[in-house]
């Protein structure tokens, strides 16, 4: 019995310690960013890996999600004779919720897991230790560029997702199902506000980019340097990042649109 309590306490303390390590790690890699000139080529390479290579999956998923929203919205709203509101529905749900959240989930799976595995493998093959030996801070050289790249890329990907989704919805609604084009766009433009909706969606994407990259990079850096440890760390990245995104989304939505 006493052992059970002790084990629970130990596990709890371990969690708290891991959280503290993650926070210290975050501070160090943000403060220890390299000089801008040195940083630029490294950052460029990471934006390429994290952002440009994620573009295809973002565009394809955005297109299909927009098309599905258009189709579902039409079949529901046509029963009330208000199928002109499809544009408004598609745009608002994409810009406010789906674009930041789905982009962050895809980003956690596509780029976050790769970040964890890469850094974990660097640790396992003692590349991080050798960098330290030759006097290069791995936080500066390896972690900081990846961190900033993720931070920068997610809002861009989210904006692309929302835009492609809206046009996907327009393709289904206007071109295939024959909603009048003028009322489709006019309804959308009347109800979507740039500051309240589009910019709040961007703020969400920035927050998600921060959280997902933080979790991914930290899990890689803190992983047990064995093949099993890396596989566990990669799984944890995807699970924790997805849960954090969904939970934070509720908090942010309540703050932005909830009138709490």
């Amino acid at each position, binding site marked *: 019995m006493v052992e059970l309590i002790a084990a629970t306490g130990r596990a709890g303390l371990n969690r708290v310690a891991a959280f503290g390590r993650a926070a210290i790690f975050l501070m160090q890699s943000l403060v220890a960013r390299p000089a801008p000139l040195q940083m630029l080529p490294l950052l*460029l*390479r990471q*934006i*390429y890996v994290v*952002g*440009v290579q994620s*573009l295809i999956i973002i565009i394809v998923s955005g297109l299909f999600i927009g098309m599905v929203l258009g189709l579902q919205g039409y079949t529901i709203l046509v029963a009330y004779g208000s199928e002109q509101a499809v544009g408004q529905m598609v*745009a608002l749900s994409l*810009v406010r919720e789906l674009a930041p959240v789905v982009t962050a989930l895809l980003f956690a799976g596509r780029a976050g897991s790769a970040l964890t595995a890469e850094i974990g493998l660097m640790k396992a093959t003692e590349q991080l230790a050798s960098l330290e030996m030759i006097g290069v801070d791995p936080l500066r050289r390896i972690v900081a560029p990846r961190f900033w790249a993720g931070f920068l*890329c997610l*809002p*861009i*990907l989210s*904006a*692309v997702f*929302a*835009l492609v989704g*809206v046009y996907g919805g327009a393709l289904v609604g206007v071109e295939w199902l024959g909603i009048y084009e003028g009322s489709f*766009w006019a309804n*959308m*433009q*009347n109800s*979507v*506000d*740039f500051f309240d*909706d*589009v910019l709040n969606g*961007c703020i969400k994407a920035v927050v998600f980019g921060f959280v997902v990259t933080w979790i991914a990079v930290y899990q890689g850096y803190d992983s047990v340097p064995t093949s099993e440890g890396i596989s566990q760390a990669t799984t944890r990245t995807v699970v924790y990042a997805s849960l954090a995104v969904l939970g934070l989304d509720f908090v942010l939505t309540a703050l932005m649109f909830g009138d709490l």
Partner: protein
Amino acid sequence: MRLRMMEISVGAFLITGALALLMLALNVSGLSLSETKQSYTLYARFENIGGLTPRSKVTMSGVLVGKVVNISLDPEQLMALVEMEVDSDVNFLSVDSSASILTAGLLGEKYIGVSPGAEDEMLKHGDMFEDTQSALVLEELVGKFLFNQASD
């Protein structure tokens, strides 16, 4: 060569992001770049505002001329006080103009319709509409109808 390709694709990626945000702003949210339109404030008191909300439209002959910015309860007259911003180039509302709360379609959104009066003096910044007509509330109409039926 590979580095150059990478630079080009990263540059294209960043430009795509900026363009996407711009398109979202212009096409989806309908943000016009000349947003800083001059406007002046007018007030109106209503018995009942129905479902009027801030950001509702203010129209004249169906043309958009402004928006509702604030709704509060006037503690002295016990009526709803609606604050609206009207575009400065709409400067031909005479002091006896009337404001009424209308409904777009059968169950649509509420908006304010302004109809001009005949006086020579015009409404200025901070003035109040004297002649107002409240929103029609369906329950009251039904209640009146039933009451009339019963008394016949």
